[in-house]
């Protein structure tokens, strides 16, 4: 009797739970289809959208504190007027964002404004995905941007990308260590000085290196430019760096590694940057190169430990630097009204106070000349002159390659360069030629 009721009870529970699962699944299928996240009354952050406002989608690609700065500016813009409402959404880092954008363009559900890492401007610009902002902005409005930041903004003579969060690589130095070694705390001026400084600052017993640089396309481009060379031929069809400084920068790095003066940070992409940054803070390295965008964090961390200085990238034959960070672009597929609205948003971000605010908040450069003159920026420069280095270095800025698929090519170049850093028997010429051939193969496969 007892057995039987137990069995019945169990049977009932089993049947009940299976019925529940089936019901849940059916409910989900219905709920899922009906539940669109996009509703018209309020945006994803819960803010109300004014009636009749043109709503534009803005995709951005920087997280953390810098991303908070973006959100603040968007909120301010939305509160400042009622004609345009910007819906801002984070879409992963620069590369995830670009991939999403590619998929969205194919599926025709692209946003209106996007944040393109500057080397991506060519990729989307030459596929005619970007709108000509010159139609919505006057020459004067475009002329306000710093000239050095406009090198990756034009496609076929059209202004398609407005500078937003922009940087250059700079040399960070531990001034305290340089002084102790009897060196000029302002840092090395050229490649020869860099080499001697690095050698002198290294201490094998303590595991301290003089210099550290991520083996990254950015610093390789810088090296080629500093030897007055070019990465690409004028027509963008041939890689030419092997004979134009590519071998020289590899030779310099190999020499410094051989002399025990240089450390190669392990890790891919930004992971290597993080290693370089923490090595500087823990005083395991005296000089290193990463972006000026790390400055605010590094100043805070160095405080009380050592005196942090910044300097231009040391000159080869000339001073030279690529620029970095991202530009804002509007998509060609958006309708005219949305394009107009997007341009109004971009103009708002480029206005004196807003550009100054964003620079101060993040450590990126002020993108317009008038923002440099803003009181808050001038006050910042007198308190922390390190912020001015990137700005002054802009006069030596050079254009980064702007071709389709450049990201894939840079991955190949970096692979070959890294091989030569770990295997010093590979000659600089051979490493540069291999890198060039690998990149050219990708380029040829696209053409």
């Amino acid at each position: 009797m007892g057995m039987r009721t137990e069995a019945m009870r169990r049977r009932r529970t089993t049947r009940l739970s299976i019925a529940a699962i089936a019901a849940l699944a059916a409910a989900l299928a219905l709920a899922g289809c009906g539940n669109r996240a996009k509703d018209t009354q309020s945006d994803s952050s819960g803010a109300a959208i004014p009636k009749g406002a043109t709503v534009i989608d803005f995709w951005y690609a920087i997280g953390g504190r810098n991303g908070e700065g973006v959100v603040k500016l968007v909120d301010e813009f939305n509160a400042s007027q009622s004609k345009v409402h910007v819906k801002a959404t984070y879409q992963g880092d620069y590369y995830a964002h670009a991939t999403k954008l590619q998929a969205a363009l194919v599926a025709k559900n692209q946003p209106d404004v996007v944040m393109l890492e500057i080397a991506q401007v060519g990729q989307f610009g030459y596929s005619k995905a970007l709108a000509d902002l010159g139609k919505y902005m006057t020459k004067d409005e475009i002329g306000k941007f710093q000239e050095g930041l406009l090198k990756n903004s034009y496609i076929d003579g059209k202004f398609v990308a407005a500078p937003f969060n922009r940087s250059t690589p700079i040399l960070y130095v531990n001034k305290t260590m340089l002084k102790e070694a009897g060196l000029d705390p302002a840092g090395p001026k050229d490649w020869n000085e860099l080499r001697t400084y690095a050698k002198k600052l290294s201490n094998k017993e303590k595991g301290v290196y003089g210099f550290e640089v991520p083996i990254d396309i950015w610093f390789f481009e810088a090296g080629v430019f500093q030897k007055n060379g070019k990465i690409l031929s004028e027509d963008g069809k041939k890689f030419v760096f092997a004979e134009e400084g590519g071998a020289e920068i590899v030779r310099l790095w190999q020499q410094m590694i051989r002399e025990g003066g240089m450390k190669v940070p392990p890790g891919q992409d930004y992971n290597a940057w993080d290693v370089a940054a923490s090595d500087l803070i823990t005083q395991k390295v005296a000089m290193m190169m990463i972006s000026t965008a790390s400055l605010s964090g590094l100043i805070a961390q160095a405080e009380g430990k050592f005196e942090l200085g910044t300097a231009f990238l040391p000159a080869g034959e000339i001073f030279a630097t690529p620029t970095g960070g991202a530009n804002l672009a509007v998509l060609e597929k958006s309708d005219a009204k949305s394009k107009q609205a997007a341009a109004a948003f971009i103009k708002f971000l480029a206005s004196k106070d807003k550009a100054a605010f964003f620079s101060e908040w993040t450590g990126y450069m002020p993108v317009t000349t008038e923002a440099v003159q803003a009181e808050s920026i001038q006050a910042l420069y007198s308190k922390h002159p390190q912020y001015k280095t990137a700005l002054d270095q802009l006069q030596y800025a050079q254009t980064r390659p702007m071709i389709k698929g450049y990201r894939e090519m840079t991955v190949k170049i970096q692979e070959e360069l890294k091989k030569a850093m770990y295997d010093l028997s590979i000659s600089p010429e051979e490493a540069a030629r291999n890198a060039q051939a690998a990149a050219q193969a990708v380029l040829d496969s696209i053409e």
Partner: protein
Amino acid sequence: MAERIIPGPGARSAARLAGSALRAAILVAISAVFVFPFLWMLTTSFKTLGETIVFPPRLLPESWKPENYELAWKNGRFPTYLFNSVFISLSILACQLVVVVPAAYAFACRAFAGKKLLFGLVLCGLMIPGQATFLPIYLLFSELGLIDTYAALIAPMAASSFGIFLIAQSFRQVPLEIIEAARLDKAGTFKLIARILMPMAKPALITFALFSFIAHWNDYFWTLSMTTSDAIRTLPIGVAMLKNVENVKSWHVIMAGNMILVAPILAIYLLASKYIKTAFTYSGVK
């Protein structure tokens, strides 16, 4: 005078003791390899930024900072992300069980035309990586106007080749006598599955449920690709947003976010471990 050495009971137990001590030491060493990263994550989530990159590294913070969790929680919309993570992972699991169990039964216990071919197709699904099918599915959902909906996050995952394969395999191991005995007792298909096959395939079912839940809980790529607004996004994206690109990363806050992300999974595992063990020792015929 040579003394004959006879290993007494004392010597034998000493040898046994040494043996079990050695075994314990090896087990501790192996588990340390797995536990240590989590321990490091846990302590880092209570450090100051300076302590996260100090050299030589220290395991414990000088003073514990629970406010890191508040910083992580307030960055973005963590309550929404948490709800979505739970809702989406559980919905996927529910849909999968509804599809997978009957399919596994059909493949394991029924004879029908084209069975081998269809099972081969299921196995193909197991072998084709998600990256290859991503674009067609994305375009399909875009055509249907379902990008940025829960449907786009749940529906494509509603069937699982891995699940069908795993559970069909374990259904096959159920002795035919038991199935025939059940049929003789006039058990219907539904009853057969629910009362005989499923309890006997418990290890496989629990393993599959955990695998599925963890995989979709952790999923970053699909969720990021299919969504364009924060309202339906999940925890892994929230954690990724804590990263400061190009600037010094706030490892303490990122690790606090990671703790929020992994804590539910660890809790489920700890709660379920008892059942998993009994499930794995369960077998049909003694």
